[in-house]
């Protein structure tokens, strides 16, 4: 009997190790887990992000005061429904005083480059999208459901800091934008 209990305990210890390898869901006040993305081939998208070149970059390299990351999947119905709303957020930023200060990127979890491109074309998405085909980034951000929005304050020392994390659609584009600007202390 004792042996049996010991077996269960040892198994539990053995099993915990892989579980902790997957990070927790992003939360306000925490640093963003470190990951690299491929520098876009498209010059317009490179300019948007303020990247000069190289093969990869990190979120902290983006020229902006705040970055909004959308974790999405081409296969997710709510992401499909939300796509025009996120496009509107992009247009509101680009057409107003916050242009250049808040930037958007999308990460397609479990999506191949072809699938991300399909999503981009379908909804005419103007901001950069990146594939995360093998769920590497998805695991780093706690395997969140989609769409999931992570708002980061950048351009500071250390890793970009999460100032807001949210599952699902935002109710109003204006409200969300105002909230981002305020939380990132953009005046």
């Amino acid at each position, binding site marked *: 009997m004792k042996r049996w209990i010991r077996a269960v305990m040892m198994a539990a210890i053995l099993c915990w190790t892989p579980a902790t390898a997957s990070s927790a869901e992003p939360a306000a006040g925490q640093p963003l887990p470190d990951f690299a993305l491929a520098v876009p081939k498209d010059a317009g998208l490179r300019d948007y992000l303020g990247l000069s070149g190289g093969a990869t970059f990190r979120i902290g390299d983006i020229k902006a005061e705040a970055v909004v990351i959308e974790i999405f*999947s081409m296969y997710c119905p*709510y992401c499909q429904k939300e796509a025009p709303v996120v496009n509107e957020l992009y247009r509101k930023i680009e057409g107003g005083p916050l242009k250049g200060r808040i930037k958007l990127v999308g990460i397609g979890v479990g999506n191949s480059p072809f699938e991300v491109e*399909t999503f981009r074309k379908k909804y005419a998405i103007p901001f950069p999208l990146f594939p995360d085909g093998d769920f590497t980034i998805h695991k780093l951000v706690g395997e969140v459901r989609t769409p999931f929005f992570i708002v980061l304050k950048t351009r500071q020392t250390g890793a970009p800091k999460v100032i807001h994390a949210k599952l699902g659609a935002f109710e109003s584009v204006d409200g969300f934008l105002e909230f981002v600007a305020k939380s990132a202390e953009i005046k």
Partner: protein
Amino acid sequence: MGRTARRIALVAGLAVLLWAGTAAAASEAYRDNVYDPGKLKPVDSALKVKVGQRAPDFTLKALSGGTVTLGGFRGKKNVVLSFVPAAWTPVCSDQWPGYNIVKDLFDAHDAILLGITVDNIPTLFSWTNQMGKLWFPVLSDFYPHGAVAKRYGILRSDGTSERALFVIDKKGVIRYIDVHDINERPPLEALAAELEKLR
């Protein structure tokens, strides 16, 4: 010690099985309504059809009412059959919403998509309602249970079907079969490449 070690291995193995299966990104559309069966045996059936052969004909009840007969498309449309294992499971709940935004890809290749599961119509109704309006027919292979899946050799031992794609040309001949690892979603580019070959 040998017995203890075996027990450790058994419990650890079970725990690993329980963890897996969360690899697919879950859409918020289903909230907590998707049942996670854990990691399943990748393939659990033996195919009974092959490429180059005439696709066995069938007639199934459609979610939109009436029936759909495969042979009805002969001479008119290429047909893609997408069997998914069951409603309300992780990967399946994603696969068809993806196909739902690529109608133009199917149109460009003069192809129709038929989505098939072994679930009954009321279950398919509730489940597909979460996906938005689907442009393609959804068919129920419920009764006699999984008869079409069985005819094609993709009915698993637990009564669900494989996650399988069949591309059938206008002559009714099977041109491509992908009995995919049930735990993973077939990449869209593979299907796109097969449709391209029909030109």
